[in-house]
Protein backbone atom coordinates (compact mmCIF):
# COMPACT_ATOMS: atom_id res chain seq x y z
CA UNK A 1 0.00 0.00 0.00
CA UNK A 2 1.31 3.49 -0.76
CA UNK A 3 0.45 7.15 -1.34
CA UNK A 4 1.87 9.03 -4.32
CA UNK A 5 1.84 12.60 -2.97
CA UNK A 6 2.89 14.30 -6.23
CA UNK A 7 1.61 13.06 -9.57
CA UNK A 8 0.04 14.93 -12.51
CA UNK A 9 -2.76 12.58 -13.47
CA UNK A 10 -4.38 14.97 -15.95
CA UNK A 11 -1.41 14.03 -18.19
CA UNK A 12 -1.70 10.29 -17.63
CA UNK A 13 -3.85 7.57 -19.10
CA UNK A 14 -6.46 5.33 -17.51
CA UNK A 15 -3.95 2.47 -17.93
CA UNK A 16 -1.68 4.32 -15.51
CA UNK A 17 -4.49 4.42 -12.93
CA UNK A 18 -4.87 0.65 -13.36
CA UNK A 19 -1.12 0.03 -12.89
CA UNK A 20 -0.98 2.33 -9.86
CA UNK A 21 -4.01 0.72 -8.22
CA UNK A 22 -2.58 -2.77 -8.80
CA UNK A 23 0.75 -1.67 -7.32
CA UNK A 24 -1.07 -0.60 -4.12
CA UNK A 25 -1.73 3.11 -4.62
CA UNK A 26 -4.65 4.21 -2.43
CA UNK A 27 -4.36 8.00 -2.53
CA UNK A 28 -2.67 10.69 -4.58
CA UNK A 29 -2.20 14.44 -4.49
CA UNK A 30 -1.94 16.41 -7.71
CA UNK A 31 -0.29 19.84 -7.66
CA UNK A 32 -1.20 22.40 -10.33
CA UNK A 33 1.67 22.62 -12.84
CA UNK A 34 2.82 23.70 -16.28
CA UNK A 35 0.93 21.99 -19.11
CA UNK A 36 3.96 21.91 -21.42
CA UNK A 37 2.77 25.15 -23.04
CA UNK A 38 1.74 28.55 -21.69
CA UNK A 39 -1.99 29.11 -21.26
CA UNK A 40 -3.24 32.01 -23.32
CA UNK A 41 -5.59 33.41 -20.67
CA UNK A 42 -6.46 33.15 -16.97
CA UNK A 43 -9.63 31.38 -18.12
CA UNK A 44 -7.39 28.47 -19.16
CA UNK A 45 -6.42 28.12 -15.50
CA UNK A 46 -10.05 28.40 -14.37
CA UNK A 47 -10.85 25.34 -16.50
CA UNK A 48 -7.72 23.53 -15.27
CA UNK A 49 -8.77 24.17 -11.63
CA UNK A 50 -12.22 22.73 -12.46
CA UNK A 51 -10.54 19.65 -13.89
CA UNK A 52 -8.38 19.24 -10.75
CA UNK A 53 -11.26 19.71 -8.33
CA UNK A 54 -14.08 17.98 -10.18
CA UNK A 55 -13.41 15.61 -13.08
CA UNK A 56 -10.01 14.18 -12.06
CA UNK A 57 -11.20 13.07 -8.56
CA UNK A 58 -14.09 11.23 -10.23
CA UNK A 59 -11.73 9.58 -12.72
CA UNK A 60 -9.39 8.43 -9.91
CA UNK A 61 -12.31 7.09 -7.85
CA UNK A 62 -13.12 4.59 -10.61
CA UNK A 63 -9.84 2.87 -9.70
CA UNK A 64 -10.32 3.10 -5.93
CA UNK A 65 -7.78 5.92 -5.62
CA UNK A 66 -8.54 9.00 -3.53
CA UNK A 67 -7.59 12.18 -5.40
CA UNK A 68 -6.54 15.47 -3.75
CA UNK A 69 -5.08 18.60 -5.27
CA UNK A 70 -3.10 21.82 -4.76
CA UNK A 71 -3.73 25.08 -6.65
CA UNK A 72 -1.46 27.83 -7.98
CA UNK A 73 0.08 29.26 -11.11
CA UNK A 74 3.36 27.41 -11.56
CA UNK A 75 6.69 29.29 -11.69
CA UNK A 76 7.19 28.53 -15.40
CA UNK A 77 4.20 30.79 -16.15
CA UNK A 78 5.07 33.41 -13.53
CA UNK A 79 7.36 35.59 -15.62
CA UNK A 80 4.40 37.88 -16.43
CA UNK A 81 3.32 39.09 -12.97
CA UNK A 82 0.12 40.82 -14.14
CA UNK A 83 -1.12 37.62 -15.80
CA UNK A 84 -0.02 35.55 -12.78
CA UNK A 85 -1.89 37.77 -10.31
CA UNK A 86 -5.08 37.38 -12.35
CA UNK A 87 -4.72 33.61 -11.99
CA UNK A 88 -4.01 33.86 -8.25
CA UNK A 89 -7.22 35.89 -7.88
CA UNK A 90 -9.17 32.84 -9.15
CA UNK A 91 -7.85 30.54 -6.41
CA UNK A 92 -9.89 31.60 -3.33
CA UNK A 93 -13.23 30.44 -4.79
CA UNK A 94 -11.72 26.97 -5.41
CA UNK A 95 -10.40 26.69 -1.85
CA UNK A 96 -13.92 25.61 -0.82
CA UNK A 97 -13.58 22.40 -2.85
CA UNK A 98 -13.18 19.39 -0.56
CA UNK A 99 -10.15 17.87 -2.33
CA UNK A 100 -8.02 21.04 -2.19
CA UNK A 101 -5.21 20.61 0.36
CA UNK A 102 -3.37 23.89 -0.11
CA UNK A 103 -1.20 25.99 -2.42
CA UNK A 104 1.20 24.24 -4.80
CA UNK A 105 3.36 23.52 -6.57
CA UNK A 106 4.70 27.04 -6.21
CA UNK A 107 8.37 27.96 -6.20
CA UNK A 108 10.99 29.08 -8.66
CA UNK A 109 12.10 27.83 -12.09
CA UNK A 110 14.91 30.09 -13.41
CA UNK A 111 15.25 32.04 -10.13
CA UNK A 112 14.10 35.34 -11.63
CA UNK A 113 12.79 38.44 -9.87
CA UNK A 114 9.31 38.05 -11.36
CA UNK A 115 9.12 34.40 -10.28
CA UNK A 116 10.10 35.53 -6.78
CA UNK A 117 7.37 38.20 -6.75
CA UNK A 118 4.74 35.59 -7.65
CA UNK A 119 6.13 33.06 -5.17
CA UNK A 120 5.69 35.69 -2.46
CA UNK A 121 2.12 36.41 -3.61
CA UNK A 122 1.30 32.71 -3.20
CA UNK A 123 2.98 32.54 0.20
CA UNK A 124 0.85 35.53 1.27
CA UNK A 125 -2.30 33.68 0.13
CA UNK A 126 -1.28 30.55 2.05
CA UNK A 127 -0.46 32.62 5.11
CA UNK A 128 -3.78 34.51 4.98
CA UNK A 129 -5.81 31.29 4.64
CA UNK A 130 -3.61 29.11 6.92
CA UNK A 131 -3.00 26.58 4.12
CA UNK A 132 -0.44 23.84 3.59
CA UNK A 133 2.20 24.64 0.97
CA UNK A 134 3.85 22.36 -1.60
CA UNK A 135 6.98 23.87 -3.16
CA UNK A 136 8.62 22.97 -6.48
CA UNK A 137 12.38 23.56 -6.54
CA UNK A 138 14.14 24.37 -9.83
CA UNK A 139 15.76 21.81 -12.06
CA UNK A 140 19.40 20.80 -12.44
CA UNK A 141 21.92 23.66 -12.17
CA UNK A 142 19.26 26.05 -10.85
CA UNK A 143 18.12 23.84 -7.95
CA UNK A 144 20.62 24.68 -5.20
CA UNK A 145 20.38 28.46 -5.66
CA UNK A 146 16.60 28.31 -6.04
CA UNK A 147 16.11 26.14 -2.97
CA UNK A 148 18.09 28.55 -0.79
CA UNK A 149 16.19 31.58 -2.19
CA UNK A 150 12.86 29.80 -1.52
CA UNK A 151 13.79 28.87 2.06
CA UNK A 152 14.73 32.50 2.74
CA UNK A 153 11.49 33.73 1.14
CA UNK A 154 9.31 31.47 3.31
CA UNK A 155 11.09 32.77 6.39
CA UNK A 156 9.76 36.24 5.51
CA UNK A 157 6.24 34.90 6.29
CA UNK A 158 6.33 34.21 10.02
CA UNK A 159 2.79 32.76 10.08
CA UNK A 160 3.91 29.90 7.80
CA UNK A 161 5.02 27.01 10.02
CA UNK A 162 7.88 25.04 8.35
CA UNK A 163 6.15 21.86 9.57
CA UNK A 164 3.29 22.71 7.18
CA UNK A 165 5.51 23.36 4.14
CA UNK A 166 6.96 20.61 1.95
CA UNK A 167 9.95 21.40 -0.29
CA UNK A 168 9.87 18.98 -3.21
CA UNK A 169 12.40 17.55 -5.68
CA UNK A 170 15.27 17.56 -3.15
CA UNK A 171 18.51 15.79 -4.03
CA UNK A 172 21.78 15.11 -2.20
CA UNK A 173 22.83 18.79 -2.25
CA UNK A 174 19.55 20.28 -0.98
CA UNK A 175 17.98 17.75 1.44
CA UNK A 176 20.00 18.84 4.47
CA UNK A 177 19.32 22.56 3.91
CA UNK A 178 15.58 21.81 3.90
CA UNK A 179 15.53 19.45 6.88
CA UNK A 180 17.84 21.61 9.04
CA UNK A 181 15.34 24.47 8.79
CA UNK A 182 12.42 22.32 9.95
CA UNK A 183 10.67 21.83 6.60
CA UNK A 184 9.42 18.57 5.12
CA UNK A 185 11.13 17.32 1.98
CA UNK A 186 10.02 15.30 -1.01
CA UNK A 187 12.17 13.26 -3.37
CA UNK A 188 11.04 12.89 -6.96
CA UNK A 189 11.80 9.61 -8.69
CA UNK A 190 12.50 10.63 -12.28
CA UNK A 191 14.29 8.38 -14.74
CA UNK A 192 16.89 10.97 -15.85
CA UNK A 193 16.80 14.35 -14.20
CA UNK A 194 16.00 13.94 -10.52
CA UNK A 195 16.46 10.97 -8.11
CA UNK A 196 16.55 7.31 -9.02
CA UNK A 197 14.93 4.94 -6.49
CA UNK A 198 18.47 3.91 -5.46
CA UNK A 199 19.59 7.48 -4.74
CA UNK A 200 16.34 8.27 -2.92
CA UNK A 201 16.99 5.35 -0.57
CA UNK A 202 20.61 6.55 -0.17
CA UNK A 203 19.27 9.96 0.93
CA UNK A 204 16.99 8.32 3.52
CA UNK A 205 19.97 6.30 4.82
CA UNK A 206 22.05 9.50 5.02
CA UNK A 207 19.56 12.05 6.37
CA UNK A 208 16.94 9.91 8.12
CA UNK A 209 13.25 9.25 7.57
CA UNK A 210 11.58 11.73 9.92
CA UNK A 211 10.14 14.38 7.53
CA UNK A 212 10.59 12.90 4.08
CA UNK A 213 8.47 11.32 1.35
CA UNK A 214 8.89 10.00 -2.18
CA UNK A 215 6.78 10.72 -5.25
CA UNK A 216 6.74 9.91 -8.95
CA UNK A 217 5.80 13.40 -10.19
CA UNK A 218 4.49 11.45 -13.19
CA UNK A 219 3.47 13.92 -15.90
CA UNK A 220 3.55 14.42 -19.71
CA UNK A 221 7.36 14.04 -19.83
CA UNK A 222 9.64 11.02 -19.41
CA UNK A 223 8.41 9.83 -16.02
CA UNK A 224 7.17 6.71 -14.27
CA UNK A 225 3.82 6.71 -12.43
CA UNK A 226 4.75 3.55 -10.51
CA UNK A 227 8.14 4.80 -9.35
CA UNK A 228 7.13 4.77 -5.66
CA UNK A 229 6.50 0.99 -5.50
CA UNK A 230 9.84 0.56 -7.31
CA UNK A 231 11.52 2.50 -4.50
CA UNK A 232 9.70 0.27 -1.99
CA UNK A 233 11.27 -2.73 -3.77
CA UNK A 234 14.69 -1.06 -3.56
CA UNK A 235 14.29 -0.60 0.21
CA UNK A 236 13.33 -4.25 0.64
CA UNK A 237 16.27 -5.33 -1.52
CA UNK A 238 18.56 -3.59 0.96
CA UNK A 239 16.90 -5.30 3.90
CA UNK A 240 15.14 -2.26 5.35
CA UNK A 241 12.34 -3.06 7.79
CA UNK A 242 8.80 -3.07 6.47
CA UNK A 243 7.98 -0.41 9.08
CA UNK A 244 10.48 1.98 7.43
CA UNK A 245 9.11 1.24 3.95
CA UNK A 246 5.63 2.03 5.24
CA UNK A 247 6.80 5.18 7.02
CA UNK A 248 8.28 6.90 3.98
CA UNK A 249 5.65 5.77 1.46
CA UNK A 250 2.48 5.91 3.55
CA UNK A 251 2.66 7.16 7.16
CA UNK A 252 4.81 10.23 6.47
CA UNK A 253 2.72 11.60 3.59
CA UNK A 254 -0.45 10.80 5.55
CA UNK A 255 0.91 12.69 8.60
CA UNK A 256 1.90 15.78 6.61
CA UNK A 257 -1.19 15.90 4.40
CA UNK A 258 -3.64 15.26 7.25
CA UNK A 259 -2.71 18.69 8.64
CA UNK A 260 -5.03 20.04 5.92
CA UNK A 261 -8.03 18.37 7.60
CA UNK A 262 -9.10 17.12 4.16
CA UNK A 263 -6.77 14.26 3.32
CA UNK A 264 -7.89 10.63 3.40
CA UNK A 265 -6.14 7.38 2.49
CA UNK A 266 -9.03 5.23 3.70
CA UNK A 267 -9.88 2.34 1.34
CA UNK A 268 -12.21 3.47 -1.42
CA UNK A 269 -14.45 1.08 -3.30
CA UNK A 270 -13.97 1.78 -7.02
CA UNK A 271 -16.93 3.71 -8.38
CA UNK A 272 -18.72 2.90 -11.61
CA UNK A 273 -17.87 5.06 -14.61
CA UNK A 274 -20.21 8.02 -14.99
CA UNK A 275 -21.90 7.30 -18.31
CA UNK A 276 -23.79 10.57 -18.22
CA UNK A 277 -20.58 12.53 -18.92
Amino acid at each position, binding site marked *: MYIDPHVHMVSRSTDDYVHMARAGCVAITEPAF*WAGYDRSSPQGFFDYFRQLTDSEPRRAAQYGIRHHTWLCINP*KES*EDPIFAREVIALIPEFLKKQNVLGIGEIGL*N*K*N*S*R*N*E*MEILEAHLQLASDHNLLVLVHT*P*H*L*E*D*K*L*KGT*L*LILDAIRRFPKLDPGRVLIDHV*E*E*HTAKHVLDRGFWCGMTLYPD*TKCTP*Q*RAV*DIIETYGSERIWMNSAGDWGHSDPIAVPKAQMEMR*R*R*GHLESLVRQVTFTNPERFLSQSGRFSAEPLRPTAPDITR
Partner: protein
Amino acid sequence: MTRAQVVDAYFMEHRARLLDVAAFLDRIDRAGHGVDDFRMSAYRSAMTVLVDGQPQRARRILELLSDPSTTPIASAHTKGATGAHDPSGKTH
Protein backbone atom coordinates in the same frame (compact mmCIF):
# COMPACT_ATOMS: atom_id res chain seq x y z
CA MET B 1 24.11 -4.26 4.16
CA THR B 2 27.77 -5.09 4.58
CA ARG B 3 30.38 -3.71 2.19
CA ALA B 4 30.54 -7.06 0.40
CA GLN B 5 26.74 -7.25 0.12
CA VAL B 6 26.60 -3.77 -1.45
CA VAL B 7 29.17 -4.82 -4.05
CA ASP B 8 27.34 -8.10 -4.69
CA ALA B 9 24.05 -6.27 -5.18
CA TYR B 10 25.22 -3.38 -7.35
CA PHE B 11 28.49 -4.23 -9.10
CA MET B 12 27.04 -5.47 -12.39
CA GLU B 13 24.63 -2.53 -12.68
CA HIS B 14 27.38 0.03 -12.10
CA ARG B 15 29.94 -1.81 -14.23
CA ALA B 16 27.47 -1.25 -17.07
CA ARG B 17 27.04 2.44 -16.18
CA LEU B 18 30.81 2.92 -16.05
CA LEU B 19 31.04 1.52 -19.57
CA ASP B 20 28.23 3.87 -20.64
CA VAL B 21 30.32 6.83 -19.47
CA ALA B 22 33.41 5.50 -21.27
CA ALA B 23 31.48 4.88 -24.49
CA PHE B 24 29.93 8.37 -24.30
CA LEU B 25 33.40 9.96 -24.10
CA ASP B 26 34.60 7.74 -27.01
CA ARG B 27 31.56 8.85 -29.05
CA ILE B 28 32.48 12.51 -28.52
CA ASP B 29 36.05 11.78 -29.68
CA ARG B 30 34.81 9.99 -32.80
CA ALA B 31 32.65 12.99 -33.66
CA GLY B 32 35.84 14.95 -34.32
CA HIS B 33 38.12 17.49 -32.69
CA GLY B 34 36.85 20.59 -31.00
CA VAL B 35 36.56 22.28 -27.65
CA ASP B 36 34.29 21.17 -24.85
CA ASP B 37 31.30 23.40 -24.19
CA PHE B 38 30.57 24.41 -20.58
CA ARG B 39 28.60 21.22 -19.98
CA MET B 40 31.43 18.89 -20.91
CA SER B 41 33.97 21.01 -19.03
CA ALA B 42 31.83 20.59 -15.94
CA TYR B 43 31.38 16.87 -16.67
CA ARG B 44 35.15 16.32 -16.84
CA SER B 45 35.62 18.24 -13.57
CA ALA B 46 32.90 16.13 -11.97
CA MET B 47 34.74 12.96 -12.97
CA THR B 48 37.72 13.95 -10.84
CA VAL B 49 35.40 13.91 -7.79
CA LEU B 50 34.77 10.21 -8.41
CA VAL B 51 38.41 9.32 -7.76
CA ASP B 52 39.46 11.83 -5.08
CA GLY B 53 38.81 9.34 -2.28
CA GLN B 54 36.58 11.78 -0.34
CA PRO B 55 33.00 11.01 0.82
CA GLN B 56 29.67 12.53 -0.36
CA ARG B 57 30.58 12.37 -4.05
CA ALA B 58 26.96 12.74 -5.26
CA ARG B 59 26.41 15.89 -3.20
CA ARG B 60 29.72 17.40 -4.28
CA ILE B 61 29.12 16.68 -7.98
CA LEU B 62 25.67 18.27 -7.79
CA GLU B 63 27.20 21.34 -6.12
CA LEU B 64 29.89 21.50 -8.82
CA LEU B 65 27.18 21.52 -11.52
CA SER B 66 25.12 24.22 -9.72
CA ASP B 67 24.81 27.94 -10.37
CA PRO B 68 26.92 29.47 -7.56
CA SER B 69 25.20 32.91 -7.63
CA THR B 70 22.87 33.87 -4.80
CA THR B 71 20.56 36.63 -6.05
CA PRO B 72 17.59 36.40 -8.46
CA ILE B 73 18.34 37.09 -12.14
CA ALA B 74 16.66 40.10 -13.77
CA SER B 75 14.35 37.98 -15.93
CA ALA B 76 14.02 34.44 -17.28
CA HIS B 77 14.70 34.10 -21.02
CA THR B 78 14.10 30.36 -21.15
CA LYS B 79 12.15 27.80 -19.12
CA GLY B 80 14.65 24.97 -19.43
CA ALA B 81 17.91 24.00 -17.74
CA THR B 82 21.05 22.55 -19.30
CA GLY B 83 22.36 20.38 -16.46
CA ALA B 84 25.48 22.42 -15.75
CA HIS B 85 26.17 26.03 -14.79
CA ASP B 86 27.13 28.20 -17.78
CA PRO B 87 29.72 30.73 -16.51
CA SER B 88 29.04 32.94 -19.56
CA GLY B 89 25.42 33.38 -18.45
CA LYS B 90 24.24 32.92 -22.06
CA THR B 91 21.84 30.06 -21.28
CA HIS B 92 19.73 31.83 -18.61
